[in-house]
């Protein structure tokens, strides 16, 4: 009985540590994948989303790059003049590790740029794109 308990807790610990290893960004992507009922997110689609111009949102922010800049590894600038840290994970490794914060900004920024909220597919594609940048 005691042995079984040790084995069980060992397994639980292993699962937990694997989850920690995967990291919050990967967990979030997995959640998006489950919600979108897809296995594939595409960095290329994410890049298109990031750079293309939309007409549904606010006229002064037609695309993500309006504020975030064309270079994902360079700093962006909000219309208020405030600097925005680069979106690329390679340059700003702390980014996208707080799921609530990621969701908050997707909601706010997609509404401003696209005039609607982003789909889970779009979120997954975009996140895949910036994680690889």
């Amino acid at each position, binding site marked *: 009985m005691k042995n079984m308990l040790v084995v069980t807790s060992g397994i639980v610990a292993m699962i937990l540590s694997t989850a920690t290893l995967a990291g919050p960004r990967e967990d979030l992507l997995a959640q998006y994948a489950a919600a979108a009922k897809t296995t594939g997110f595409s960095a290329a689609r994410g890049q298109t989303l990031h750079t293309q111009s939309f007409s549904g949102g606010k006229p002064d922010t037609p695309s993500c790059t309006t504020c975030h800049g064309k270079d994902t590894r360079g700093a962006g600038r*909000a219309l208020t003049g*405030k600097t925005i840290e680069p979106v690329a994970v390679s340059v700003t490794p702390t980014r996208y590790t707080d799921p609530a914060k990621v969701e908050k900004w997707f909601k706010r920024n997609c509404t401003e740029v696209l005039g609607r909220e982003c789909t889970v597919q779009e979120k997954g594609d975009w996140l895949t794109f910036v994680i690889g940048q």
Partner: protein
Amino acid sequence: MRIPYRPLAISLVTLAFSALVFARAQAGDRHFFAPVADPVVKEECGSCHLAFAPSMLPARSWQRMMGELDNHFGDNASLDAATAEKITSYLVANAGDVGGQRYSSKLLKGVAAGAAPQRITELPKWVSEHRKVPDWEWRHKEVRTKANCVACHTAAEQGSYDE
């Protein structure tokens, strides 16, 4: 009688210098607005723009602003109710017309008693303090808007609006 020119000159220069330093230090005090200390307020109010010092507006301004976050100067900056409430109490508790604020009363000079101004840059005192800034400087690509305090006041995030 022999006048001790040299020591006299030295003391005069010293005196003038300390007067200058003292005047500058005083000016520094006058232009100090305690920055936001609360991490939640700093995060939520400081992502898109400088987290403006709560002492720059009266409490009623902050109350109105926090009630209209869905149209925050044209942007939807809505927050969940709990966070919004937390931020409102911080802003109100540290507002410019709340007791103990020594310098912000000057910035709020000329604001009507019941008024709830929303833009710091439209306060009469703010306008008069910035009257000498030419139009092209506001349009400069590093400035862009009058709300971009740090473009000129490099220590604004620390609360100092000296230069």
